């Protein structure tokens, strides 16, 4: 019997040693991983909330990838992220040092900055810019790329032709006057890629060689692992402050917040309410609310009863308790009762926002609308994608509110990409979908894309087929109007009609907070999901 226990002990000792060795090794490793000598070489770690997409700006969608692109590449012009503004950020020079607009509003001449070079040493001249536009617009060009062209069609659609008049001057010729062009050109997606890369690589391979003129250049890119950028010492705008920027993929919000707490990461650029709650009271942690223009809504199908009934749609806008949604996310969202979000250039308090929370009124109006009851609305809801972290929970509240006024909802929860694919051709057998758009500051771009009768599928993204001749007429007059105030007033009139027609269930504006660790400096809460990489530094 003694033998038995001895054998048992021996086995036990071995097992114990193995476990102890494992844990010991683990602790050692974690300790050494945490002891970063970061202050010596200034490094900042930014959370990437999902897989980092291929780094080809022209083909990109989604904030996560564009945030990386923003550091590597430059567009011609940028929004000024150095100050907090209530309206749209000012437009400032980027790769173009200056620009001129012809009196008829049709010709834009950009003077390309001298002394700017791509990370591979290629000169950033007007020919390089032209080659980028050729990739998007010239079917006969050897660098033309169908997917890139399609991805940026909504911007290039305004452009008739591009040309270079000399080594530094790049000219854009418009089809018709369009005052919003410069704002569109600040889009990170229309950044300039090295012409050498465009010549040398094709298709998907371009994304593996992200070479731009921006303050940081690529150092390490491994599938599923972190993306690392290092300082571009030859940056045209002076010496960038950081040695290294790391984008660390952390899909789980709790883990991301915990790593910020322990100093493993320094910034969560798109933060959720739970993360802010988790980090509450943490010393040195700063929460910023940039509040860029955006709007979350349910877009209705105008071709299917009862959502083809404007009285019915109006009634539903009184049924939703938007404050409860705000409570759910700790006030991270601001209720919206109309069609214009804060941050858009035409925004004024109370403008085109006729609704409130009044379920009794909603019930009355539904009864008066003549919509046949009972009704069950078939709605699609995304369960993933940028800014949709809480979409499922929020929609459950909406569902509850609609039930309270006698409206049933048959919800269809889909992956974001799958939902876009399902609705892109316009709604078919559904009453609509739950959606959020970052609207940009430009009124024309926002309103026309969303509400112009001309922008119905397959041409545009007016996927609910909203069309009102009065609104279209105001758009036509506004588009050519070069006087800002007059143009804004025309769009304000349109916004009021749209709010009254209620093609959407207007819900809320996400304040899109970001969390900065104690070491981060140089990030200002300008109204944008982006920030200025040239001022980003470390304490």
């Amino acid at each position, binding site marked *: 019997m003694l033998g038995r226990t001895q054998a048992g002990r021996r*086995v036990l000792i071995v097992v114990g040693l193995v476990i102890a060795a494992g844990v010991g090794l683990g602790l050692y*490793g974690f300790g050494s991983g945490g002891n970063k000598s970061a202050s010596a070489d200034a490094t900042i770690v930014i959370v990437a909330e999902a897989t980092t997409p291929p780094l080809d700006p022209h083909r990109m969608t989604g904030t996560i990838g564009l945030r990386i692109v923003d550091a590597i590449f430059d567009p011609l012009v940028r929004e000024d992220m150095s100050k907090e503004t209530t309206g749209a950020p000012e437009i400032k020079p980027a790769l173009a040092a200056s620009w001129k607009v012809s009196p008829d509003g049709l010709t834009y001449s950009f003077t390309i900055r001298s002394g700017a070079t791509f990370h591979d040493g290629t000169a950033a001249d007007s020919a390089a810019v032209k080659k980028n536009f050729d990739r998007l617009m010239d079917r006969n060009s050897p660098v033309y790329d169908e997917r890139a062209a399609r991805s940026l069609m909504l911007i290039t659609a305004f452009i008739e032709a591009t040309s270079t008049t000399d080594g530094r001057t790049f000219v854009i010729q418009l089809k018709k006057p369009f005052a919003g062009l410069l704002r569109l050109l600040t889009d990170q997606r229309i950044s300039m890629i090295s012409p050498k890369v465009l010549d040398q690589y094709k298709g998907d391979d371009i994304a593996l060689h992200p070479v731009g003129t921006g303050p940081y250049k690529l150092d390490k890119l491994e599938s599923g692992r972190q993306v690392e950028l290092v300082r571009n010492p030859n940056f045209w705008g002076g010496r960038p402050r950081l040695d290294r920027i*790391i984008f660390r993929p*952390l899909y789980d919000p709790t883990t991301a917040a915990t790593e910020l707490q322990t100093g493993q990461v320094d910034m969560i650029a798109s933060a959720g309410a739970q993360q802010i709650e988790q980090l509450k009271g943490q010393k040195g942690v700063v929460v910023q609310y940039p509040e860029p223009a955006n709007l979350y809504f349910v877009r209705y199908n105008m071709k299917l009863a009862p959502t083809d009934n404007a009285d019915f749609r109006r009634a539903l806008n009184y049924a939703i308790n938007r404050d409860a949604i705000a409570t759910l996310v700790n006030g991270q969202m601001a209720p919206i009762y109309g069609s214009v979000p804060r941050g858009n250039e035409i925004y004024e308090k109370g403008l085109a926002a006729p609704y409130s929370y009044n379920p009794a009124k909603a019930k009355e109006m539904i009864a008066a609308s003549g919509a046949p009851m009972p009704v069950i609305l078939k709605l699609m809801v995304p369960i993933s994608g940028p800014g949709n972290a809480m979409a499922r929970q929020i929609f459950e509240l909406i569902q509850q509110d609609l039930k309270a006024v006698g409206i049933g909802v048959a919800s269809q929860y889909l992956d974001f990409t799958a939902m876009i694919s399902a609705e892109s051709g316009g709604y078919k057998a559904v009453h609509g979908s739950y959606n959020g758009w970052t609207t940009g500051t430009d009124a024309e771009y926002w309103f026309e894309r969303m509400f112009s009768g001309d922008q119905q599928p397959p041409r545009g993204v007016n996927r609910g087929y909203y069309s009102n001749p009065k609104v279209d007429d105001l758009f036509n007059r506004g588009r050519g109007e070069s006087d800002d105030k007059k143009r804004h007033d025309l769009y304000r009139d349109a916004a009021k009609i749209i709010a009254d027609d209620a093609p959407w269930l207007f819900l809320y504006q996400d304040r899109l907070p970001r969390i900065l660790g104690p070491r981060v400096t140089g990030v200002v809460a300008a109204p944008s999901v982006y920030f200025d990489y040239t001022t980003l530094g470390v304490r």
Partner: protein
Amino acid sequence: MIAFVVRRLFQTIPVIFGVTLVTFLLTQILPGDLADVLLGPTASEESRQQLRAAIGLDQSLLVQYANYMGHLLRGDLGQSLVFAQPVATMLASRLANTALLAVSAIVLASTAGIAIGTWVALKPGSLRDHSLSASVLFLNSMPPFWLGLVLILVFGLELRWLPTSGMSSAIGGGGPGDLAAHMVLPTLTLGAWSLAVITRMTRSALLDVIDGDFIRTARSRGLSEARVILRHALPNAMPPVITVIGLQAGFLLSGAVLTETVFSWPGIGLAMYQGISARDIPFIQGGILLLALIFVLVNFVVDALYAYVNPKIELS
């Protein structure tokens, strides 16, 4: 034994064909058209038709399958939509990470399982035996992702002993110590279920041989009990244990999807989950195919190993 292995190999080949057929058919039952998925929302009907013709979607099913097999034999698994790289490259770059996790989980489960199983088999019916039964039952009844979350909660969030995400620290990561630290929780999560199964099998296999004649003979020769167990009983109890360890491959490959999702481990499982939620059809297809082939291969190797350990085996 060689004859067995050869015959087993011939059984494997039709299975491999079947696997390619199933992965091919999987894309046929996915909702929507591959062309829609590839081109995205803003594509015109014209370019959609062009693409359909280009990738052969307008051909008959048989021709499409032949095309698929042709590409497959050239090692071409198509282009991933989400990752915009060849699927084969993507899978290859992540295979090592999944293999690392799966192998460490099975090594942990096997060594600890055999050790613990032996330890309790020495005293059947004792308190330790009963507590083992209870633990085995508990581990076998636990969803792996829940175990993962509890481990994150305790060791990551409360005690802050161990990292809970990815394979390395953001800064100064990449060393073996750092990697080991990141491996602890995912390995435990993935290995727990197998650990329970292997422990249980070791225990019962040992109990079955321990009363055998040769053990009695060995004991009567006055050998020490430890020697009897380790030299005589354990080797004879090994065949069913090896079988059970081999059977874990399927569980580990499935479990990797959940474990990698919970711990953001950059392996095939996490990419598969992301690919499926983003409808990256070529990647889903390639990933499922690869994992299934690995599984077939592991089973074959296990059977061959089993035949080696136990030469009397016949093909059923």
